[in-house]
């Protein structure tokens, strides 16, 4: 079996343009609350391309790309984000709690909870629909959450048809995951008896291959597998991440963050200032690293996958996807009475 580059690219493009549209709606204040966006389209597309009807997905707080890559109707999705009663969940779920029963897909904002939820989907598949599988998506930060660790064992002990996909963007909000994580995630999964592969999460073809292996194992009743996909994190933890604003609006943010830090540096006993300087430095370094990583655009998964197909196809697919997303957004805005073209 070989990947179909056009199909994969279409999934990715739809996902990316939806993310961009959501960012725009969010900036305009039409979406409330936190909004976590991603550049994880390659992971989403490469995995969900293997799913068929009856397969299930358990998603985390970055749940739109897998849903969009899998082909969810865009209008109810956008209406949901706008809090509209015709939204996917009647406006009651919002972006961290998207539920699509038809696609057997559920998301949750509690870090780690997508793992056991996926295990439950896999239990049902085992019982009701031999050959069907479940996928859980989560971040590397979630890998220290007890219920996820328990699930590694449960999935192995029960030989569940479960694919565990870790999107390793190296950060959990402002924490470098490495600094709070012992050992190594691949070995960790294996030590529970789960076969594991590492993959470059910006390369959709590589993700596709790893997922072919993992989904194939699950369908054949050979139990769970683990995929560790490295991904960039380009937009901070959520939109408007205050740490990234230091770079976008340096003046304003530095004025906000700086003075209290200086006060802390010089607070009593002032003699301690020498000890404190390196700590201030540590904070500064975190900010710098966060900012610098954001600029690693050369790793943009969408651009990288473009090379897998011809220029003409790329342009056609992008155009179609862009049009589809745009129409859905406009239609959603119009239905929400919020100033679409016909408002």
């Amino acid at each position, binding site marked *: 079996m070989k990947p179909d580059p056009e199909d994969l690219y279409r999934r990715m493009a739809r996902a990316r343009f939806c993310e961009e549209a959501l960012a725009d709606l969010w900036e305009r204040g039409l979406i409330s609350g936190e909004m976590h966006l991603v550049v994880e389209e390659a992971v989403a597309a490469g995995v969900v391309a293997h799913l068929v009807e009856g397969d*299930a997905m358990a998603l985390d707080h970055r749940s739109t790309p897998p849903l969009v890559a899998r082909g969810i109707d865009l209008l109810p999705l956008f209406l949901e984000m706008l809090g509209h009663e015709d939204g*996917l969940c009647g406006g009651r779920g919002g972006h961290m709690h998207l539920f699509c*029963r038809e696609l057997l897909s559920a998301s949750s904002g509690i870090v780690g909870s997508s793992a*056991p*939820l996926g*295990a*439950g989907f896999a239990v049902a598949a085992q019982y009701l629909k031999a050959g069907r599988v479940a996928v859980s998506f989560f971040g590397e930060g979630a890998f220290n959450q007890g219920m996820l660790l*328990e699930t590694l064992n*449960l999935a192995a002990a029960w030989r569940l048809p479960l694919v565990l996909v870790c999107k390793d963007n190296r950060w959990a909000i402002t924490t470098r995951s490495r600094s709070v994580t012992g050992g190594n995630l691949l070995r960790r999964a294996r030590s529970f008896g789960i076969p594991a592969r590492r993959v470059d999460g910006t390369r959709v073809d590589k993700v596709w291959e790893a997922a072919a292996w993992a989904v194939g194992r699950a369908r054949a009743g050979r139990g769970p597998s683990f995929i560790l996909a490295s991904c960039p994190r380009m937009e901070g933890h959520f939109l408007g991440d205050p740490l990234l604003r230091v770079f976008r609006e340096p003046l304003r943010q530095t004025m906000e963050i700086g003075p209290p830090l200086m006060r802390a540096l010089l607070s009593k006993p002032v003699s301690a200032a020498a000890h404190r300087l390196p700590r201030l430095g540590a904070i500064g370094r975190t900010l710098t690293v966060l900012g610098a990583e954001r600029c690693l655009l050369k790793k943009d998964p969408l651009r990288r996958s473009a090379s897998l197909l011809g220029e003409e196809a790329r342009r056609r697919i992008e155009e179609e996807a862009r049009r589809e997303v745009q129409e859905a957004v406009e239609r959603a805005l119009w239905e929400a009475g919020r100033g679409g073209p016909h408002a």
Partner: protein
Amino acid sequence: MPEMTFAQAIDFALGMAMERDERVITFGEDVTMLRRELFVRFGPKRVRQAPISEAAFLAAGVGAAMAGLRPVVEIMMVDFIAVAFDALLNQATKIRAFSGGKWNVPLVVRASCGGGYGDAGQHEQCLWGLLSGMPGIAVVVPSNPADAAGLMLSAVESEDPVVFLEHKLLSDYWLDYLGAGGRSTVCFDVPAAGARGEVPSPPLPVPIGKARKARDGGDISILSLGVSLHRCLEAADILEDNGIKADVVDLRSACPLDRELILSSAARAGRVLVVDEDYLGYGLSGEVAAVLAEAGIKADFARVGPWEVIPYARRLEDEVLPDVRRIREAALRLCGHDA
């Protein structure tokens, strides 16, 4: 109607549900031994042994329920729900709401509860008040075999999460495992009418949220459930000697409450005594008080039950758990007698 123990009645109903509906499965720690008869009948796929990973396997129950099964997940003792609380608070009970009513979670959480045999407060809690504090849940607490069977049937048939609590003083095998261990040197205050009784065969579903008037009086309305209900009935008999006729209501579920029966019993009597084996603070007794107050029923009110962690020593435990003496005294005080 055949006579059964409380424990037999529950597994009788669960076996019936599993026979009727292939989607009903059960899993949890040690279930192949605890439910060995069901294991023999339905096999390892439908009666499945779990590791000591309540957080994962309860949340897996949520996922399984969403994807078409009707899991009965056993958490050995309700106290252990604490390690799996997220699966109830943030997952199972949220999904119908978050999905705009489009997706539901037909999950039963089965657990033993309650004290009176000396295991102390990390293994003898009731927690139905705490559990009832999350919207979207039902918490049933049967007090006799027929209700146990009927409520188990209704729980399995429910489209939404139900916690089914099985009191250890009523379930002979739990009490033997945990309290007696085959000894004849200990004895426990087991309410006979709760531990054994007639059960319709096939069992009749008991609707969740319908209370039952276990005794008709009118001078005072005593509300309770589970083992405490039997203590109340005993106290009510003694209260007759003081010329007090008591209503005793078996609430049957901590949540939802049967407002209608509570209000009618309370309104007639003008005096309400809530007897609860769960912690009194911020729980069932408070909710009853609020229901009464909201309805404008200005009854005299008191409650009997533990305010504190259940101590180990049997003597201290007896001082904390609701007993006939304290129920009677509280009732007398409410009725204006010197206790």
